[in-house]
């Protein structure tokens, strides 16, 4: 049992070590510059100027009719979804446009298009889509279906009126409303996603690199012969890194997310900080684990990629859990980052509260405790 005095000693020593770690990080100028860069410029780059939607998709219209009707139909393919590029003269030129990627869509309006429409016949319009990007291929196709559907509704109504059966044709207009990000501002998503990703990367890399560097230089032996227990060595390290990462988070939120991208922080910021602190602290266990496996920085770098890449792809940021096969979904359930993403977006963008996030947070804490415990146990076995 420890007396009160001992506790104070331990605390004092701990704080001194935190100070030492912070000082050490501070003196690593390359690292500090890098941290500054990623938590500002990198997040800005990831969020700005990028768009996943069908935006300025190039469309070349091969109008073989050159009539009023054909031009009218073609004119409905408008920005922001589409942008017109020079029309090809013949099918070979059209194929060339698609092959070279100069145009994503070629629409061919047949000769006699207007005549057919006027005579009440059906006219077929060819719509060739470069689907080498499957998502955009789908969107280019479905936007066209919508545009032509609307056109048909108007034309059809006129035809029906001509037959004397009334000038109306019913149709369904499906308006879409996107929750949480009504204007589908990609910068919000990319900015937050990049921030959460960076937090994860540093939560693993910083402790891993710090521990391995001490290992490489042999300074870890110095610490071990000191009257400190492994936990007393590790806790200050992890605490210092948590502080540094939270400082980065502050920078990113204040300067980039709020300052530039105008992300509406809908939930409580203190809650987000608490969640992030818990996450960084517990995830650092994975970094310590890596440090016990690797012998030098090169190895730890490669190992970190091996661990981080799957975590990122199983975080649910890019692929929703329901689209994954069951075994992969199981893997996802044990990735702490998955829960951090849920909670991070939940607080920042959806305005969820602690009570609503209880489930993912509990899972995150549990997995994190496991990771930290495992890291500590291996560290202890290796050194103490």
């Amino acid at each position, binding site marked *: 049992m420890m007396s009160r005095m001992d506790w104070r000693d331990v605390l004092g020593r701990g704080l001194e070590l935190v100070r030492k770690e912070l000082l050490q990080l501070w003196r690593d100028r*390359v690292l500090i510059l890098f941290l500054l860069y990623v938590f500002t410029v990198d997040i800005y780059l990831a969020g700005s100027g990028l768009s996943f939607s069908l935006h300025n998709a190039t469309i070349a219209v091969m109008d073989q009719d050159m009539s009023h009707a054909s031009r009218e139909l073609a004119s409905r393919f408008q920005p922001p979804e589409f942008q017109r590029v020079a029309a090809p003269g013949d099918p070979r030129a059209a194929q060339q446009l698609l092959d070279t990627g100069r145009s994503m869509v070629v629409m061919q309006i047949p000769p006699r298009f207007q005549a057919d429409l006027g005579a009440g016949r059906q*006219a077929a319009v060819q719509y060739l889509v*470069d689907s080498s990007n499957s998502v955009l291929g789908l*969107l280019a196709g*479905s936007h*066209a279906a919508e545009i032509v559907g609307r056109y*048909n509704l108007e034309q*059809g109504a006129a035809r029906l009126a001509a*037959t004397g059966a009334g000038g109306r044709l019913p149709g369904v207009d499906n308006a879409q409303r996107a929750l949480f990000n009504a204007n589908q501002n990609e910068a919000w998503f990319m900015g937050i996603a990049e921030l959460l990703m960076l937090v994860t990367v540093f939560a693993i890399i910083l402790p891993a690199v710090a521990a391995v560097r001490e290992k490489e230089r042999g300074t870890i032996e110095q610490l071990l012969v000191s009257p400190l227990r492994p936990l007393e060595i590790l806790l200050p390290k992890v605490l210092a890194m948590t502080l540094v990462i939270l400082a980065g988070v502050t920078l990113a939120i204040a300067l980039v997310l709020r300052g530039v991208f105008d992300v509406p922080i809908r939930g409580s910021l203190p809650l987000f900080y608490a969640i992030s602190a818990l996450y960084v602290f517990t995830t650092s266990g994975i970094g310590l684990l890596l440090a016990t496996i690797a012998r030098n920085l090169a190895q730890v770098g490669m190992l970190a990629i091996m661990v981080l890449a799957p975590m990122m792809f199983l975080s649910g940021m890019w692929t929703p859990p329901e689209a994954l096969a069951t075994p992969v979904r199981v893997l996802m359930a044990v990735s702490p980052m998955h829960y951090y993403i849920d909670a991070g977006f939940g607080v920042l963008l959806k305005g969820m509260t602690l009570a*609503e996030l209880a489930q993912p947070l509990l899972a995150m804490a549990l997995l994190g405790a496991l990771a930290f415990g495992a890291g500590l146990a291996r560290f202890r076995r290796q050194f103490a």
Partner: protein
Amino acid sequence: MKLVRAMVVARKEWQEIRRDRLFLALCLVVPVVLMLLFGYGLSLDVENIPFAVVDHDDTPASRDYASHFSDSRYFDFRGRLADEGAIDRLVAANALRAVLVIPPGFGRDLAAGRSVRVQTVIDGTFPVRAMTMRGYVLAINAQASTGIALEWARAATGADERSLAALAQPVRLETRNLYNQPLRSVWSMAPKLIMVILMIAPPFLTVLGVVREKESGSIFNIYASTVSKAEFLLGKLVPYVVISLFNALLLFLLARYLFGAPFKGDPLFFALATAMYVVCTTGIGLVISVLVRTQTAAMVVVAIVTVVPAALYSGAIIPIESLSPAAAGVAHLLPAMYYAQVATGSFLKGVGWPVLWPNLLVLAGYAALLMAAGYLLFSKRPRT
């Protein structure tokens, strides 16, 4: 420059790599693991979307319309909600991602030949997912709406099938998805993954290999030896180029046979362009390793200059036309974009020399430039 001496340096480097078993294993395993993860984990196919319906109308017409959505493979029908009140909460908790809201009077209005407006609420948190859902909704709605119009025209005129189609659907849009007919996202992704992984892995290996020598001080042996600058750099580069080419072959085989992406182009052209690209990315590593002094800094700089450009400014996920002008400018300055076009062209589009020779030229120029930069920046008498 004597080739023999360069080869001796290369052999020494190779032996060093071979003896660091973990490093060698990681060299060969990391790219493959990344490919598997991205390939399986980064599916952008959004399927089984948790979906519910709020049907205020509850008539055969509204149920029929809703079934177009719930019967499709994209949506996973989770049930009906009594009203809109719970939507936000359920979507926030990831229990639902799309909710169709049908207003009262839906059936009545359609029966009277009036157009109606329904609403689909979608989870806008993740823009890629939201866009894909939007595409599905547009396409399904266009189809359902055309069916309703046809039905109305039939009832109104009693005309036969052919004239009905002409009446309600004057323009038939014949969409053909070229290059990736089934719109499989893994087909789109696989060639681009080769590009991304070959952008990231070779520089990593190279910097770690070269800077390690600087950090451990063994580079002074080189400084003091008769080995010339060019011989040293060439010798250093060769093992990493060879390893990366081997990795490229593995990645190609995975893309082709595991993910089943079709390869329609000229294998020789693709091999040549890949080799050129690998020399480029290894060269990036070389230039960085000449400039920095520590392994940590090297990894950090590599991460900055490769990861974001490869993923975001290469046209891999977002087409160049959709980038902002500044971002598009950046894209044109980097080799990733040119090789991405080669990869997609060779795999999906089946184009080769005639279309893509300028890309090969750019890659070759880039490689030459990097080698020259490495040569000029490397000094056997560094300022310390």
